């Protein structure tokens, strides 16, 4: 049994720099595999709907009439099943996490041609 066995650690801590980071001034560097959020490249998506059938939480909604692909950000658990199942490989897992939000939001992606049609 000893007294002050922690003193060495304490003393070293006085002279070493903090282990924490001054977030968000000092941005976090994510490892390559971090599962942050899902992005969809709508130019390649064929709206087949396979991703929405594979999604365990039912976070994805594909609407062929509206030519839109929507993801409920707060239902998604970042499992990556949709990315694995997509035949066109247009889905990708991005490293950065989504912003915190005050309400449960859904992000809607629309096919470019549908967008131009709606605009005209």
């Amino acid at each position, binding site marked *: *049994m*000893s*007294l002050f*066995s*922690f003193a*060495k*650690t*304490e003393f070293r*801590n006085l002279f070493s720099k903090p*282990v924490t980071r001054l977030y968000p001034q000092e941005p976090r560097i*994510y*490892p*390559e*595999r*971090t*599962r942050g959020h899902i992005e969809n490249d709508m130019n390649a998506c064929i709206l087949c709907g396979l991703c929405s059938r594979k999604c*365990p939480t039912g976070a994805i909604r594909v609407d062929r009439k509206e030519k839109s692909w929507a993801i409920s950000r707060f239902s998604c*658990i*970042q*499992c*990556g099943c949709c990315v*694995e199942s997509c035949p066109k490989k247009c889905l990708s*897992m991005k490293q950065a996490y989504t912003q915190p939000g005050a309400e449960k939001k859904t992000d809607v992606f629309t096919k470019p041609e549908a967008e131009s049609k709606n605009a005209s």
Partner: protein
Amino acid sequence: MSTRSVVPFGPHHPVLPEPLHLDLVLEDEKVVEAIPSIGFVHRGLEKLVEKKDFNEFVYVAERICGICSFMHGMSYCEAVEHIMGVEIPPRAKYLRTIWCEMSRIHSHLLWLGLLADAFGFESLFMQSWRMREKILDMFETSTGGRVIFSVNKIGGQRKDMDNSMIRSFLDIFAGMEKDLKELTGTFLNDGAVRSRLDGVGVLTEQQARDFGAVGPFLRASGVQYDMRTTGYAAYGDIDLEPITSNIGDSYARTVVRVKEIFQSIDIIRQAAAKIPEGDFAVPVKGFPKGEYMMRVEQPRGEACYYVKANGTKFLDRFRVRTPTFANIPPMLETLKGSQLADVPILILTIDPCISCTER
């Protein structure tokens, strides 16, 4: 003759972040009886198995608990694989072993921190969690998640660790070992720490057997019982000896867990040396039919998973008996006769995880 009074402990108590409620019957400062009540965070995850495809349920099983998430997912997968007669590739077995042991280190470090916090040694708590952060970073590098990993699937793993990644982890562990020795030296030798742990809450071997304790709580009372010796995942090829102590007090439980941290690092080294090349998953077709009981050693002790399948994509029944559930009766036994001031420490020495107890 002193009068008896009842002091409620929890469900919200500064020392325990999780909702466990105890009614402590006191005679002066001495606890004569503790009456538990649980059920504050019941989420009905077992019932969900009837609504989720058995492949999708892996993600639910993982979410039973945030500390043993890897082992929950893995055990569920192993149980279904046994029912379906799927033999997973050896590389997947080794990957599972490595991730299991990393979970054990991170869980034990978390516990050491909480223990330090319980007796008011805040900087020791922070040092333990600083160390744990490194493990979480390794998890994020290898699986993409810090707490929920989503790397298990029925038939193997969803991600591989290449050899350079495993080597870099071994280097990190080699660096950590020195820091860990210093940190755990304080837990094991410091006079102030020992004055809070020595002789507190003794559980004899007979009591441990009678009340059905599991995990480090049981091994600290001198019973050599570790589910890893049954050889699930790749544990069959790994050389390991269950760590025991025969003192049975809170200090012994700390010693067992500290030694298990080093044992886990050793297991990871062995696994890294033996890991074979090859696939890390096999395709699985069809639906499971039958039942299986899977037993694994989690950081907190033995967990049992019962899976019953009926040949469709939905399972009939999924049941988990978590280690904390088994450890509550022996914990109540150790509380009897203890001082009120020692109650937080005694509850902590079983490493309670109420979320997984209530699922």
